């Protein structure tokens, strides 16, 4: 009898397997039958999407999702994947041929170009200018997602000029009677003084200058001239080259090596990850780090305020370069891209619906109107009192995990602002120190020029395939030079090896594309 009971349990288990897998199959089939029907204006479209998230995910049936379905009369079925494994999952899905209607990616990587060339995405050339928020995407920025003359993606907004730039502990400067540095010599003196003269006044030798993590990051380039990412300098043949192999970078590495010898840079930086390096600065050990107006971490900053209530942080404005230029590099001007499935070409109504949804999420709302008074803002954020509240004039949104607001689900929720300052990022912070720092960074960026980085407008196949590996090589070599394990005289050999491994091909491809685009020398904005 006892045995029979067990046997039944086993049979039930086997039955359960069959039933459940059959259910899975039905679900799938149901999704498919709704697609591809006759186009009909009144028909309720099922719209599928695949997107990624770094942090928490909105739930499957959240309030925000229902709001979208009601407003646009659709059945919106998004799925989200953790960013670190997104590329692999997306590859599997694209290979399976069952591509969702909307595909969101972080940027145009080599997969994007591959799939675009294979015809996986819908060309958007004629559509973009029909929608006000997409019309705003500047032509030079569109080039990054243009393949053979066809624009394949809607680019999400990113401030043009708000990059991460160096910031410094003003309270430490004041205690030591120093001013905010204006050139590399002064910055060196300050960094050494932070290391040796007890800037926090606790009588202990426990502080230093520059916080740094693996890959010489941040690199403390005080302008486009020294920036490793900027294609600003030229080689002997008149070709543009990446900052990473330029003469300016060589001098910069020598400068860092000097500081490292003085103990003014994080000692084991080559082994630290970004979180650990943040800790170096926000725990009050290092006095110089980087900051940006948008998206800084309030938890970190509150940690610093708790430890040293008198902390003050100010930006270090760009230095004047030997060639007279002065200013940081601008960003690619977009972050995140939204593509449509090429198969949608047969369903113009559905495309119109999707474009309407995307356009709606991108609508700009001026800072002073971000409250229940503005119907668009109120709806996008899930209505006051439900999706968000207003505290002391600041919008406090519910966490994404609750899925209470349509912006938690929409493919693009970033407002396309008319200019950087209109975003009012600094005013959204609740930690006063962070608010002040962000405001002074906004002011600094508003007052200085920025180099339009030509690399953002072109695509090089070799670069897409090899850049990661080649950069790692350069980082390793340059880290050794800072550590003093390798002499700086090895620089030319390093550049040569880089060129031979594929760097020369990258330079050639980039310069050819630039020529085709009509590039005519550095452009400052």
């Amino acid at each position, binding site marked *: 009898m006892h045995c029979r009971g067990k*046997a039944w349990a*086993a049979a039930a*288990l086997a039955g359960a*397997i069959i039933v*459940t*897998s*059959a*259910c*899975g*199959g*039905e*679900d*799938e089939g149901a999704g498919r039958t709704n697609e591809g029907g006759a186009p009909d204006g009144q028909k309720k479209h099922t719209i599928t999407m695949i997107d990624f*998230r*770094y*942090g*928490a*995910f909105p*739930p*499957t049936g959240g309030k925000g999702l229902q709001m979208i379905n009601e407003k646009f009369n659709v059945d919106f079925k998004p*799925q*989200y994947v*953790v*960013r*670190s*494994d997104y590329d*692999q*999952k997306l*590859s*599997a*899905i694209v*290979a*399976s041929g*069952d591509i969702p209607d909307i595909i969101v990616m*972080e940027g145009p990587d080599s997969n994007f170009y591959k799939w675009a060339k294979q015809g996986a995405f819908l060309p958007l050339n004629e559509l973009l200018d029909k929608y006000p928020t997409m019309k705003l995407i500047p032509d030079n920025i569109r080039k990054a997602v243009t393949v053979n003359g066809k624009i394949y993606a809607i680019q999400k907004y*990113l401030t043009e000029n708000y*990059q*991460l730039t160096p910031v410094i502990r003003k309270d430490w400067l004041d205690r030591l009677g120093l001013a905010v540095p204006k050139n590399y010599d002064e910055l060196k003196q300050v960094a050494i003084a932070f290391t040796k003269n007890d800037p926090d006044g606790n009588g202990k030798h426990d502080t230093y200058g520059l916080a740094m*993590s693996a*890959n010489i*990051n*941040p*690199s403390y380039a005080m302008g486009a001239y020294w920036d490793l990412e900027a294609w600003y300098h030229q080689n002997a043949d008149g070709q543009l080259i990446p900052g990473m192999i330029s003469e300016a970078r060589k001098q910069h590495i020598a400068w860092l090596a000097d500081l490292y010898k003085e103990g003014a840079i994080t000692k084991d930086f080559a082994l630290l*990850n*970004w*979180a650990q390096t943040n*800790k170096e600065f926000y*725990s009050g050990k290092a006095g110089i780090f980087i900051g*940006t107006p*948008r*998206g800084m*971490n*309030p*938890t970190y900053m509150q*940690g610093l305020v*708790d*430890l040293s209530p008198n902390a003050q942080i100010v930006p270090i404005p760009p230095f004047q370069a030997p060639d007279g230029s002065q200013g940081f590099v601008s*960003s690619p001007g977009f*972050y995140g891209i939204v593509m449509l499935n090429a198969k949608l070409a047969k369903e113009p109504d559905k495309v119109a619906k999707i474009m309407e949804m995307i356009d709606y999420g991108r609508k700009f709302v001026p800072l002073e109107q971000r409250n229940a008074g503005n119907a668009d803002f109120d709806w996008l954020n899930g209505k006051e009192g439900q999706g968000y509240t207003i505290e002391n004039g600041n919008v406090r949104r519910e966490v994404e*995990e609750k899925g209470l607001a349509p912006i938690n689900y929409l493919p693009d929720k970033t407002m396309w602002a008319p200019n950087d300052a209109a975003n009012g990022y600094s005013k959204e912070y609740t930690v006063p120190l962070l608010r002040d720092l962000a405001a002074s960074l906004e002011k600094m960026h508003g007052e200085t020029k920025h180099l339009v980085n030509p690399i953002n407008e072109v695509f090089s196949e070799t670069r897409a395939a090899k850049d990661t590996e080649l950069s790692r090589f350069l980082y390793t070599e340059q880290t050794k030079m800072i550590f003093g394990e390798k002499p700086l005289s090895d620089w030319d050999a390093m550049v040569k090896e880089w060129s031979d491994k594929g760097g020369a091909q990258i330079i050639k491809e980039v310069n050819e594309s630039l020529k085709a685009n009509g590039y005519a020398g550095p452009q400052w904005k």
Partner: protein
Amino acid sequence: MRHRTWGERCIDIANVLLLGFIALAMLAPFWYVAAVSFASYKEFLQRDIVWFPKEWVLSAYEYIFASESFVRSVGVTVLVTVIGTAVNLACTSTFAYTLSRPVIGQRVMLVLVLFTLLFSAGMIPTYLIVKETGLLNSIWALILPIAINPFNLIVMRQFFVGMPGELHEAAVMDGANELKVFWNIMLPLSKPSLAAFALFYAVMHWNNYFTGILYLNEPEKWPIQVILRQMIVVGEAQTALGSGHILLEHAPPAETVQMAAIIVATVPILVVYPFLQKHFAKGVMLGSVKG
């Protein structure tokens, strides 16, 4: 007690020291994770390394258990582990027993199994199979594609082969059919090896995250490892932002919360070990030494 020479004692002391040191090296990272999970964020920032929090706080755990998705994902993992291990044992033991008997095509079957041990189809073909069998977005996708581990299967087969043939003969003489022999004789005899494989399989299911990411589309169905990865990876992602045009929009959970998540995700499976340990040591060796 036998008198021990000076040399022997020296070796003993050296052994204890060496093994103690190795054990400590294994334990230290885990202890650190536990200590940080109970420390306040301020203390974590302030001290270089936290071995013993000055002030024990539970805020990190409160944060985690307030998160619906985290608690739910623990439930999913427990479910997948229990059902998955049961399926694994059922499939592996029956198949292994069959292969240990002189059945037609046994050689061919064995070669096919060995083949999968050496070569695998890779991610995309496997995905296609899971998709076409309709398992996508169902927790069975985490269980059925890995229902049998070929290595475990072969070890278990060896175990059955090693059993005295007389046992089988005697049972048949008494009128038992193959199923009965398997169920009433062979399975009870192989409890130690079943326990060992149960542990292997359970740990595999518990730690599995990638199939969850690949095959499940709804966050509600994700196991704990996917959620854990998501929490830890946010911190990591920011390492890559050298250039700074990626936004730090989604603040990662504080390190103390990350550590607490690791503890919650690790301790349950760790607790299973002592219970199965005694079978484990015995079972692993079985089958390796044949009569």
